[in-house]
Structure formats: C-alpha cells, structure tokens
C-alpha cells in the first residue's frame, strides 16, 4: 500500500472513531448538558448511518487491526468521551448522597442525647405556672366558689359582683346545671326589701322564683329547695299582688 492510501485510511479511521465515540454519549441523558456542551460537533452523526467499515472498527475499538494503526486517535477519543459521562454522573450522585446524609442523620442523632439537658428547661415553665396563677382554678378554689354560689342562691340574692373571671365561668356552669337563668354578677341586683309599717313579718321578705328544671339530684346539691318551705302556688301569689291597691 502506498503512503497516500495509508494516510487516507488513518484519517478515515480517525474520523470514524471520533464519530463512533458520540453514540456512547447518547445513553446518558441525565448528564446531557455537560456532554453536549463538551462535544457540539457530533450532531450530524445520529441521523447519518456510519459506514460499514466504521462500524466494524467501532465494535472493536481495541481490536488488533486498529491497534497498530490508530492508537493515538483511539486512545484520546475513547477515554475522553466516557470520562465526563460516567465519572461525572457517578461522582455527582455519591456527592449528593454524602452531603445529604450528614445533614439528616447527623443532626438529630447529635441532638437526641441532649434532651436530658433540655428536660429541666421544660419543667421550669411548669414550675412557674402556679406562681402566675393559671386560669384553671384549683379544687379548693372551686369548692369555695361552690359554697359562695350555693349560699347566694339559697339566700335568693344575685351573685356578688366580686367574682373573678374564672369563678364567673364556674358560676355559669353551675347555674346551667341547676337550670336557673344564668346569673351575671352585678347585672340583676335584687331590689332591697321595701320598708313599710305594716306588721306582717311573714310577708315582708323577698323571694325570687326562677325557672328550675325538675332534676332532684342537682337541686339537692345546691340545697336550695330544701332550705325553703313549701312554696305557695303562683296563682295565690298573683291574687295577692292583684289585690294591691295604690294609696289614696
């Protein structure tokens, strides 16, 4: 063979090998941007079927026939093409995993044993809470409110306006259970007993008759019904009131 033919063959082999290196890059889509950026030339290779000679040469890149003639071209093309694809992809993935692992796993694991130190801090607000008087009243406070409310009901008077917010809520709850209209502190004061000169000791006291549910157990708790004598009927009370005539 002449030197011209050998030179042509070398140039053809170089081209073919350079082109065949491109299909190896195609199956790596995730890393396409760096590959395309690094090898813009091979665009026309995909639609253009390679020549039979080139295929043969490409299937056997390290074949004995091509080895002696085009080692410099094959060596440079083959390692360069896979290198950015495979190595970059493999390197990037582990990097991502390795970076994520310490963030997720290391932080909680490092903090987990420390709650021993935090626990006392959690207990501190609990200790401070009673000092600042939480809105929930203690059992002693509730019983005191119960006594005061029951006493006020038994006396037929309105609840004293000196109750706090927590006690006022309790008043509403108790009043609902009893079935009375909800007494609001200071809103419905019972008018004082009118002072007259008539001698009717039994008739000169004021009474309040509010709607009461016929629930005996609850009424017994308040002991309101037990404290009073048997009430007269409304009809008889109304007849007395209707009988009142203005002076003069």
């Amino acid at each position, binding site marked *: 063979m002449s030197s011209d033919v050998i030179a042509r063959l070398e140039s053809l082999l170089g081209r073919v090998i350079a082109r065949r290196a491109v299909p190896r890059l195609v199956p790596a889509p995730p890393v396409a941007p760096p590959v395309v950026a690094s090898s813009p030339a091979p665009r026309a290779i995909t639609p253009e079927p390679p020549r039979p000679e080139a295929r043969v040469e490409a299937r056997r890149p390290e074949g004995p026939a091509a080895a002696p003639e085009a080692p410099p071209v094959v060596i440079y093309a083959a390692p360069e093409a896979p290198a950015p694809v495979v190595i970059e992809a493999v390197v990037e993935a582990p990097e991502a995993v390795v970076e994520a692992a310490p963030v997720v796993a290391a932080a909680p694991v490092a903090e987990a044993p420390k709650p021993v130190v935090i626990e006392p801090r959690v207990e501190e607000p609990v200790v401070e809470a009673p000092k600042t008087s939480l809105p929930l009243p203690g059992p002693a406070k509730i019983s005191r409110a119960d006594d005061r409310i029951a006493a006020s009901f038994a006396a037929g008077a309105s609840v004293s306006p000196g109750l706090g917010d927590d006690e006022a809520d309790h008043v509403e709850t108790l009043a609902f259970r009893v079935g009375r209209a909800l007494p609001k502190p200071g809103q419905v004061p019972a008018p004082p007993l009118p002072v007259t000169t008539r001698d009717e000791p039994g008739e000169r006291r004021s009474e309040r008759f509010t709607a009461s549910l016929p629930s005996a157990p609850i009424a017994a708790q308040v002991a309101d019904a037990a404290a009073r004598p048997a009430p007269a009927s409304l009809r008889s009370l109304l007849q007395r*009131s209707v009988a*009142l005539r203005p002076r003069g």
Partner: protein
Amino acid sequence: MATRLHPLASAVTVDLSHGRIELKTPSLARAVAVPATWLARAIAALGEGVDPLAKSLAESVAKDAVMILDGTADPTPEEVAYSIALALGQRGFGTCGFERFGDALTLLWNFPPATDASFHRFATALVAKVVSDVTGVQTHAAVLSTHAEGLTLFLGADPACALVRERAARGDAGPQILATLLGGASA
C-alpha cells in the same frame, strides 16, 4: 310537668339546606329568624297598634306553657317560670322568672328582644296576657324598672299598674315604687 316532652336540645331545628327553622312545638311548625333589632323597630313602628301582635304572640306562648305544665294542679312559681321561660326561649325571646316583694309579684324578663321605652307597651301586653292565660287570674302588667339586659314588670291590678307606670315615668326606682305601693292598703 311534661318537661321531657320538650327537650331544649331538639326544640329548634335549623334546616340550612332549605333555609327553614322548624320549631318542635305543636303550635308553630315553622319560624323565621330575624335580628332582634329589626323586631324592636317593627314593634316601635306599630305604636299603639302593637296590642294585637302582642296578644297573638302571647296566646302562642301561653298555649305552649300550659302544655309544658301538663295539667299540673296549682303550679308553683318555679314551674310556671320554667314553662313560660321555655316557651319564650324557643322563640328567642329570652327567659323569665318571678320575684315577690311582700304582696307584690314581679316578673323578671331576662334578655328580651329590646328594653327601650318603645318596647314597654308590647312587653306589658305580652306578659299580662301570658300570665293571665297560664294562671287563670286576670292580670295587668307595668314596667317597674329596666336594666342592661332585662325588664322587671309588676303584675297586679290596673290601678296599681297605672301607679307604677306613673312613678316609673318620673324616674323613681323600682324598690321605691314598690314601697309606695305596699305602704297602701291592700284588699
């Protein structure tokens, strides 16, 4: 009393899909909810013609109250207060209770639709009619005092109610009016 026949929990049913409010009472099958201020304005606009409206409502309330009493013979003030309060409450008209000062009997109307003077005529007509129908004792009523969320009405004869209205119009306090009334001769 037939209290168990009228549980408060199922007394009113709001049917939002049809925009209806159903009352579980035999006298009224359906209700329409309007703001209390609207009702108060309508009552005030009626002026002296409010009596038929009060009478009509009173008949309905008294009918329910009597049914709640369920034939209780000579009911106590608490029982009557409960029946009337329940009948009023089912209509959004608040609750009520009775108070007695000597011989004077008063009705404490809590949370009525209104408490201003334009509502007093309606209130007295309604209360007098309800109490008369439930007890069978012909009664008149007059506003004795007004407070933030309620009215206190004196229940008695017409002359006594006239005195109460007169003294209340002058600004006298309720207890003072009652003292004057109780200081006179009672029959």
